[in-house]
């Protein structure tokens, strides 16, 4: 930061020197008929650089917006006076002019030209500085905001991961209790599935990566619970053709999509439907296709896919643009979700 400021200041001084040289050339050849270029050049530099110095100094201390204009004017006037004084020093030392001569023949010119050129130049610098400042400010604020947002998102994510949908939990427990009287074996099976589903769900909330096999396992438990609940309204298939059970895979990618398929596709459809999960590897890309024959997404349901946006965001956080999630309408009915992640 300090270094950048120093660099900026040096840059300002160099530009000022170039301006001064141009002014000296213009004055010498257009106003003073080409005489004394060296003297005019020296005086011009002394004036310009002292104005520049004073203004930088003032700018360093006067930071508040209120003082901007006043500070600029004070810096300019003091700079012109110091520049004039130095110019006199130069003329009296090297050219032997005394103070009266200087005051009569040189000072008025120098002062007027100082102001005339100083005003637009200082305006140029101050506005340039302001733009740089506001850009830095925007960048800074943005970084701050993004950091905060990221933290907030991480917290929400952890909460979401830890959260087990109450509807799911209570409906499943209601089934278990009803099954006590109807089919004790099914009831036992359901409790085992629920137990394992909960165990993996709670575990995976603390892990960044699990394996594909684990995620499929969890999804199978989830589907098995729904299979008992929905009876023959639901059928499902999981086809893992990857032969890579230890492949590292983020949690909460497949199951939320299956959850969506059941919740918005199959449960609301009177005849129910089928869910098929296919996992294949093609050219170092793992492709997971989740197809359901449910109701599909109508206009209203397009506001319901909260899980889908979560999955999409998670894939992007983990794999960047190398992963993708595509949702399509399945023919003749339902939704097809295609996840692609690099191996």
């Amino acid at each position, binding site marked *: 930061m300090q270094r950048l400021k120093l660099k900026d200041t040096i840059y300002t001084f160099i530009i000022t020197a170039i301006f001064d040289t141009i002014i000296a050339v213009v004055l010498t050849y257009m106003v003073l008929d080409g005489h004394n270029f060296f003297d005019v050049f020296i005086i011009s530099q002394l004036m310009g650089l002292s104005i520049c110095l004073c203004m930088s100094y003032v700018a360093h201390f006067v930071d508040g917006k209120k003082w901007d204009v006043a500070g600029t004017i004070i810096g300019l006037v003091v700079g012109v006076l110091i520049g004039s004084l130095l110019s006199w020093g130069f003329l009296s030392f090297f050219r032997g002019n005394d103070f009266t001569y200087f005051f009569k023949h040189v000072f008025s010119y120098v002062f007027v030209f100082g102001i005339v050129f100083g005003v637009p130049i200082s305006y140029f610098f101050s506005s340039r500085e302001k733009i740089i400042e*506001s850009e830095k400010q925007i960048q800074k604020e943005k970084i701050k905001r993004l950091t905060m947002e990221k933290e907030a998102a991480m917290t929400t994510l952890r909460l979401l991961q830890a959260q087990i949908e109450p509807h799911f939990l209570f409906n499943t427990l209601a089934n278990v209790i009803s099954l006590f009287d109807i089919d004790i074996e099914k009831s036992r099976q359901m409790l085992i599935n629920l137990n394992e589903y909960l165990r993996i769900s709670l575990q995976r909330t603390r892990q960044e990566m699990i394996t594909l096999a684990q995620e499929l396992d969890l999804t199978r438990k989830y589907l098995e619970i729904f299979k008992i609940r929905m009876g023959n309204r639901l059928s499902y298939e999981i086809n893992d053709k990857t032969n890579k059970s230890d492949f590292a895979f983020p949690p909460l990618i497949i199951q939320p999509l299956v959850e969506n398929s059941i919740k918005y596709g199959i449960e609301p459809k009177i005849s129910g439907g089928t869910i098929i999960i296919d996992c294949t590897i093609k050219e170092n890309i793992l492709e997971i296709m989740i197809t359901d024959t449910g109701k599909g997404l109508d206009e209203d349901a*397009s506001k319901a896919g909260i899980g889908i946006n979560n999955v999409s965001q998670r894939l992007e956080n983990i794999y960047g643009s190398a992963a993708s999630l595509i949702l*399509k309408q399945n023919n003749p009915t339902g939704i097809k979700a295609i996840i692609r992640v690099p191996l």
Partner: protein
Amino acid sequence: MKQITAIIADDEENLRKGLTLLLERLWPELKILGQAQNGIEALSLIEFEKPDIAFLDIKMPGMTGINVAKKVSNACKIVFITAYDHFAVQAFESEAVDYILKPLTQNRLKATIDRLKKQLGEQEQPLDFDLKMKKIIQVLENKDVPEYLRLIKVKTGSDLRFIPVSQVLYFKAEDKYTIVQTATNEFLIKTPIKDLENDLEPKQFWRVHRSAIVNIEKIQAIKRSFSNQLIIGFNETMHTIAVSRSYEHLFKQM
């Protein structure tokens, strides 16, 4: 005394059976006329059998229990069954309409049965019941209003695709269409930008121009152009969107 009758509607068979068994145990005189596994069946069963009581699950395919209750024309006591819905329970309690929670417990069901017996003994004004029901329906329907758009429906060739809004960089008006820009694709939809603005989560999607809405989570950099205009750049792409003067304050007061 006339025998009291009931029907049970729930899309999950185990729960229908479970409730039937519990009712047989706790209220043996009650005659269960039939079971329905979706809202449409429930409605025709009620219309056909004319039971005194209908146990209705709220979340059913075809038609929700609430809508079945709304459409029932004969005088029939409704008991709603719901899993976990703080909101619905509040609505029921405030209007004193009966409901039971899943998982069912004997004690809770017993209380409901006692209340039903008492109500059937008296003669409640049907008008009063209608009024209560209307209030509940209002509460529940308001709750069901979806919040924000999460998927954008687009056509690509013969395919219909759904784009998660989190993938969208920006929406931009172009003639009669709106461009939906993602990192890899561009889609055209017919929804005007004005309508989109109302449907999108305002904390995430900002209107920055008369013709543009940006996803602020996808912003990579904001720069000033030579003409002193703010320009937004997006992650991993060359796409940019200009911020019009009247929206610049959005980025200054952060």
